């Protein structure tokens, strides 16, 4: 039986949105979290993502049509040949969606956004969905703030005026959409700072060379080992592995290390989950697996989302300084660069709401020292 993909609410004041773009053709197989369509209001554009794996069977509206929030936007089925439900079934689906939840209050909408929830996912105790309803649902499900799933957290504020010179619109690819959402998070939700330290790369280079020889590795393990060390530093300094949520500190349970990689011309982030549980060899293997998975386009959604700390290197180009953008809901992103002659520096972008310069300097100092033998 096909499942309905509902039209999301972008803000509390607009009961309709304009359907602007199909991002996949009917018949395309999508995974949960894949971009499917774009809708917009006067204030924001929004990428609607698949809420489950399956084949997009059909869109229920034409481009540029104005559609009601909560109506069925598209159908997703288990096979590409499944019959699309009739208009009556769609109306019934809309109606049942309407009875499950009420329109969220502003506070509830903010909470839904922060947790990547849709209003239809949360039972309402009264005519309108309240913040208490959402909080109860979050507690019951043990949820944490999310950066995936269709929600208003992915809404990107539309510029107030069009570009001043003539040009044409060109659709963004899904990876470009992902990057747009990431940088938009930092712009609106973090207070980024950046600092860097000079460091002596020789001890780490020697350490990585010995590791490579010991494990007979083809690939230089320096960056994975630095990333592993950073995950350990995040355990030693838990503030690094936290964020701010609703004016309180949110301490993550696990260290999920996001590592930026380039695949063709796209920048991607792969995530080593529960990195604190991995020893060096397991971490290096996992990160290499993820990189190969990204190149094969076979990553599962959880392998490319949910980072709690970040690591980025532009040494290959060879860049001597770069200031990376923080990954959503993270407080620190390592900026590794290429040594220039005898001089090398390592830096970090950090969320100044969470960390101060002293915290970051302490973390970088720990990171630049290779682990002792008993730490490996």
């Amino acid at each position, binding site marked *: 039986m096909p499942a309905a993909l509902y039209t999301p609410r972008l803000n509390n004041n607009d009961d309709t949105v304009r359907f602007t773009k199909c991002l996949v053709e009917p018949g395309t197989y999508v995974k949960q979290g894949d971009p499917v369509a774009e809708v917009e209001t006067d204030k924001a554009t929004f990428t609607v993502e698949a809420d489950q794996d399956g084949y997009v069977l059909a869109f229920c509206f034409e481009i540029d049509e104005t559609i009601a929030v909560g109506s069925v936007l598209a159908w997703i089925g288990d096979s590409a040949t499944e019959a699309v439900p009739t208009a009556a079934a769609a109306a019934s689906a809309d109606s049942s969606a309407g009875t499950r939840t009420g329109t969220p209050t502003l506070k509830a909408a903010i909470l839904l956004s922060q947790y990547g929830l849709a209003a239809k996912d949360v039972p309402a105790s009264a005519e309108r969905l309240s913040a208490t309803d959402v909080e109860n649902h979050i507690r019951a499900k043990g949820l944490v703030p999310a950066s995936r799933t269709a929600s208003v957290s992915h809404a990107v504020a539309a510029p107030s005026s069009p570009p001043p010179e003539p040009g044409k619109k060109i659709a963004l690819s899904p990876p470009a959409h992902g990057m747009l959402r990431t940088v938009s998070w930092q712009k609106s939700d973090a207070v980024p700072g950046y600092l860097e330290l000079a460091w002596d790369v020789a001890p780490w280079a020697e350490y990585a060379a010995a590791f490579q020889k010991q494990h007979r590795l*083809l*690939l*230089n393990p320096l960056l994975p080992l630095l990333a592993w060390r950073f995950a350990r530093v995040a355990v030693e300094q838990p503030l690094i592995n936290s964020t701010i949520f609703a004016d309180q500190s949110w301490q993550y349970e696990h260290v999920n290390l996001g590592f930026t990689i380039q695949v063709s011309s796209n920048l991607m982030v792969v995530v080593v989950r529960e990195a604190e549980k991995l020893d060096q060899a397991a971490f290096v*293997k996992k990160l*290499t*697996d993820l990189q*190969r998975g990204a190149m094969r386009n076979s990553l599962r959604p959880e392998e490319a989302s949910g980072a709690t700390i970040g690591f980025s290197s532009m040494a*290959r180009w060879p860049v001597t300084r770069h200031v990376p953008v923080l990954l959503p809901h993270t407080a620190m992103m390592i900026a590794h660069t290429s040594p220039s002659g005898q001089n090398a520096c390592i830096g970090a972008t950090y969320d100044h709401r969470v960390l101060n310069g002293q915290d970051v300097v302490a973390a970088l100092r720990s990171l630049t020292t290779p682990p002792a033998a008993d730490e490996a």
Partner: protein
Amino acid sequence: MTDPRKAIHQKIIELAKRLGNDASSLGYHDSIPDRGALDSPGLLELIMWFENEFNLEIEQEELTLENFGTIDAMASYAEKAGA
């Protein structure tokens, strides 16, 4: 059959060029990582191409210097794998 070493060398030259490096003088016995023409992501791209070119699926445990450290080693690996 075309010598696989030529195709491998050609791919290394192509990947190295993207990084601003020249791998044209890389010999079949030279260590690819030691020559520095390709970094780790570049080597991974080379392995991806190698798998497609020779219709192989390589386990990570097989990604060793012995198997893929030189053009000769890569060609031998493909031959042993029956590609």
